[in-house]
Structure formats: C-alpha cells, structure tokens
C-alpha cells in the first residue's frame, strides 16, 4: 500500500525520531512510504487562533502537497483531524479528508494490525487520548488495542480522556489555566513506565510541565513505542 507521511511541523522539529519510527513501522508492515518534502504545517495554529485567511492558505498548500497521495498517514490525531474535519468545513474538497488517517487508526482500520510483536511485554503504559483524535475522529480503542496487542499493560487512568491543557496558542495565551489542566491530569497518573500518546502537542505540554514540577515520568510517542514492539524491543 502506498502511503504519504504528513509528519506535522511539531514532529518534524521536536519528534523527528517518532516520525522516523512511523516510517520504519509502516515499511515493516509492507507499505511504500513517501514524504512529500514541500509539506509544512497543516494550518491548525492559524485556524484555532481565528486567522481564517492564513489558515485557508496553509490548508490549500497542504492539500496541494498531498493531492496525489493514495493514503496520508499523520502521527498526530490533532493534525489528522484538522485535515479530515476542518478542511472540508473550509471548503476544501477533493477527497483528501477521507484518505487521511491518524497513525494508529491507519494501522487498525486500514491494515487490520492486531499483533505487532511481543516487544512491550511487561511494560505498564498510560495512554493519553488526544481530544481531537478522541472526539473529532472517534478514536479511542485503536491505540489501546495496538499497545495491548504488543504485550503492554495499559493501566486504567481516570483522566485518560481529559484534555492535557495544550490547545496550541491557548497554552501560551492562558498559561496559568493551561498548566493547571496539565497538573490536574498528571495528579491522577498511576505508576507507569511510560505515558504514551499519538499527539506531539499533548506530549510537549505534559512532558514540559512534568519536568518543571520535578516529575521523572517518561513520555513517548505512539509511533516509537509501536516500532519498538514490532522490532522486538530493541
């Protein structure tokens, strides 16, 4: 299957290894992966800030860059939701929305992956459900099934579906509230080896706040953890 990776601007610069792990994972599963190098940002920062014109320009650019792709895989639920849900609302048709997948959803729903390998045996993991993956794309069980299928124990985290407080611009515009939200979420965290999420933005928010408050919790992107599972826990 031919797949174009839309790595997202955040992952390009802050989670480069996770992006690379997504490529390794997709190839391992038999996909032919391309990376259209003219890709930049999906436009969500401008869209959520209410900068309509700028958001539309960025969305048009991204649509053009991805127009020939058979499937677009995004290692971010939030950016995938921007393309799949917001682009059509901005008047951009062309079927890109229905060809765009969050990574975990692509693995489960399109490739039908259930067991990636036993590489996560014995690992206790908490999964942070990104809001846009959960509520806009309707993904909840997919990442859990993938993690459990690789041997991980996904612990019951009371605030797994609660917002981390990132919200893009919100995190710097209303920083006190944003940080309080991260604290409220992290305060309920059970003992785990890793907090895993499919969303770079949420991971930045949670890990940066955790480090400031002296926590040694480890935060990892879903792509890296799943590649580790498939690769045998190397």
């Amino acid at each position, binding site marked *: 299957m031919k797949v174009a990776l839309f790595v997202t601007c955040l992952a390009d610069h802050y989670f480069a290894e996770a992006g690379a792990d997504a490529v390794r994972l997709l190839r391992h599963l038999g996909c032919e992966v391309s990376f259209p190098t003219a890709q930049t940002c999906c436009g969500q920062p401008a869209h959520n800030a209410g900068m309509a014109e*700028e958001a539309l*320009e960025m969305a048009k650019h991204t649509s053009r860059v991805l127009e020939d792709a058979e499937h677009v895989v995004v290692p971010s639920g939030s950016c995938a939701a921007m393309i799949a849900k917001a682009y059509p609302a901005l008047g951009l048709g062309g079927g890109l929305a229905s060809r765009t997948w969050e990574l975990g959803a692509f693995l489960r729903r399109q490739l039908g992956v259930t067991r990636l390998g036993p590489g996560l045996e014995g690992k206790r993991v908490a999964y942070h459900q990104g809001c846009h993956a959960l509520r806009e794309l309707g993904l909840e069980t997919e990442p859990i099934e993938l993690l459990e299928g690789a041997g991980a124990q996904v612990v019951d985290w009371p605030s797994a579906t609660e917002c981390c407080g990132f919200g893009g611009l919100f995190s*710097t515009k*209303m*920083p*006190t509230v944003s940080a309080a939200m991260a604290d409220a979420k992290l305060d309920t965290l059970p003992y785990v080896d890793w907090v895993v999420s499919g969303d770079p933005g949420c991971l*930045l928010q949670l890990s*940066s706040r955790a480090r400031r408050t002296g926590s040694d919790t480890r935060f990892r992107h879903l792509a890296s953890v799943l590649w580790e599972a498939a690769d045998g826990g190397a």
Partner: protein
Amino acid sequence: MEVRSRDYAALARAIIENTPDVRKAVSGATAAFDAARRQAYAEIDSEAWRRWAEGVKNHVLNHLDRYLEEAETRLLENGAKVHWAGDAQEARQIVAELALARGVRSVVKGKSMLTEEIDLNPALEERGVQVYETDLGEYILQLLDEAPSHILGPAIHRSLEDVQALFADRLGTSTDALPDDLAAAARSDLRSRFQEADMGISGGNFLVAETGTLALIENEGNIRLTTSLPRIHVALVGIEKLLPTFGDLAGFLQLTARAGTGQPIGCFVSLIHGPAREPGDDGPEEVHIVLVDNGRTNVLADEHAWETLRCVRCGACLNTCPVYKQTGGHAYGWVYSGPIGAVLDPGLLGLEQAAPLPFASSLCGACFEACPVRIPIPDLLLHWRRAAQEMGLTPVSERIALKAFSAMATHPGVYRQLGRMVPGLAGSAVVRRLPVLSGWTEYRELPEPSPRRFRDLWSEGIGE
C-alpha cells in the same frame, strides 16, 4: 454585575494562584455532576434525545415571533399579566414599578440567572425593597456578598468548611455542623422571610406557548414556595425559553435534569398557569411574566451565534469543561461562565466586552458531547475568535506572529531554511523571553528540539 470579562486571564491566574480551595471545590463538585450526567445519558438513547431537543429548539427559534404571540395570548387567557422588556433597564423598571405600585417591602427570590444578568436585586434595594435569596447556594452568596459562579450550583466555589464557618458566624450553628444541619438552619432563617414577603420573584426554565405554562425545575422546594406563597409572583423569562407544546415540555424536563444533575427529573417541577382563580384559593393573587430580550434578538440575527439560544442553562458544559474546573465561574467576569458563557457572553455583551472568553478554551470538544441541545460550542468559539481577529481585539504581536508563520508555511523553501535554525533558536535567551514563549516557560520547561529534523533523517535515508 460589573462586566470584567476582559480581565479573564488575570482573574483566572489570581484564582488558581491565590485561592487553591476554589479550584479544589469546583473540581470536586463538577466531577460528581459530570459523572452523574454520563450515567444518566447512558440510561437513555441520549443521542436521539439530544437530536430531538435540538430540532425542537431550532424550530422555536426559527418561529420565535409566532410562539411569543401564542404564549402571550395563552398567558393572558390564564389570567397572568405579560410584560415585554427590551433591555435590562426596562426589565428592572417593570419589576420595580410593580413592587412600588403594590406597596411591596419584601421580596423572596428563587434562583434566576436572568435576574443576575439584569442586576435586579440592587435596583429593588435602591428603592427600599428588601430582597431575600432563598436558593441555598444563593442564600450563602447573599450572606457573603458574592456573585454566583455556576449556572446550577451558584456557590460551587465554596467548600463545606467555608459554609460551616459562615453559618457559625451568622446563624449560630456549630463549626462542624453537617450539611443537613446547615440546610435546616438556612430553612429556619428563611421561613419567616417567605411568610412576610409581598412578592416572589423567579426565573423560568421553560414557557410553553400552547398552554401558557411556566415550568420551573428545582431540588429544594424554595421555588415552589416563592411562586405560591406571596400575593404577587413575578417571573423573568428570556424570550428564547419557549417550547411549542406541553408534550415537548415532558421531554425537556427529563433531558434537562439528566444533563444538569444526572437526575431523571428534578425533585420539584412547578407548572404555573396563572393566579388563584377564586379569592381564598391557594396561589398568588397576581402572576406577572416579564419576557426579556436584552440582546437575544441580536444574537438570533447572527448567522452563527444564534445556536447559543438553544441553551437550557443546565450547566452540563461547565461540569465537563477542564478549563472551567480550574477556576470556577468568577474568572469569566460575568453571569454566564464556562463554555456556554464563552460563546453566549460575546453575543449578549458585545465581543469588545468579552473578547478573551472565546480564547479561554483548548477546543477539547467535551462541551459539545455534554450539551443536551447540541450547541456546537467548539465551532462557535472559532467563530468568535475569527470575529475578534477581524475586529483587532487580539494582541498585535499575536497576529503578526501568526501571519509570519503562515507566510513561512506557504513557502516550503523558506520553511525548510528557517526550520534548520530551530535547535539554535530554542536555546537562545532572547527567544525564551518572546511573549509567546514566556507564557510557555513561566510554567514549563522549554522542550528540546530534535537534534536532526525528521526531513534531515528522511533525506539521509531512514533505516535503508
């Protein structure tokens, strides 16, 4: 009340940093409400109910003139008096004149957010009329001289300990009195107020056009007394509170209770059709319905914001909102707080007065899932954000930064070149002090950029 919504960020900061007990009280109470709501939704086909309720409310709002006239006709037939108030000033004037013309010296009130919206209490007190709040939460707030912080639980920001201390001081209860004893003390203090009151003032959850029925939902019984014991009952009702038929009411009473508190229906539902028919019958001698616009017609005319008028004031969106939970309602600086306040207040007050509120959200979408009438709050937050940008109500630095980012992101060559500089820039002291980053670094470490970008790893050949 004085509008302070423009100070949202500062008010929120002060609450979180200076009054941790508020955050604790609000988080605890809203979590309980939200869990009850989820359970109550799970017991029914909530999706079907919500879609039905959305449809009924949309129908009413699309034919509001017709239903308002029908409601007025039925109310008059039932013997009630109907008053029309275009704005807050007119509404205050109507109630004050009613009170003065009838020699009213003492008023008991049931909880009504609309009376907060129009600042009714001070207007009556200025004219020498004593006003007593009878909802337990509102009673507590009146003793504290504070504004409500939640649509349903006005004193939700106060802990049990706060109330124990307050009542010990004012009512002589013990400092470790149990909630039931505190309620009993308030009830006993209020009993004579009910008996002495010349007028009862309430809000209204629904007004049925078909029958002229005013419906009120509550759990304490104070609204039942307020609307039945004094010789005059005045109800202030927003013009958007209409329902077409009595049958519709049956559905809305249940859905509203499930959404707000998780109950199948409120403990007390009062259905009011007018004054006592014969002298000596139970009920007030006069019933006055004041239909209040106060900006609602303008909201109805807005092609996006009109959907906020479906709101039944259940508070479900507040209870599920991770932003609201950190501060409670006072941070929002006006009567309606939380997600619904963030989209309703700009319409009722004008966006200039409330510009930060639509930005007080991470756009997590939990509010939409909770809303019993499916108000697309996240979409409306974006609508108001776009309007705020167009009107220049956001910081210039923010707009410039986003325009620059957009220009860069639509020019891949520039984007690639500048992206190369991210690791170097992230370490620079100057960059750390930029406004957009100081908001980040005040509470968080600056994340380490990847040593090599993804696109560098790609061009070098990942694992090949």
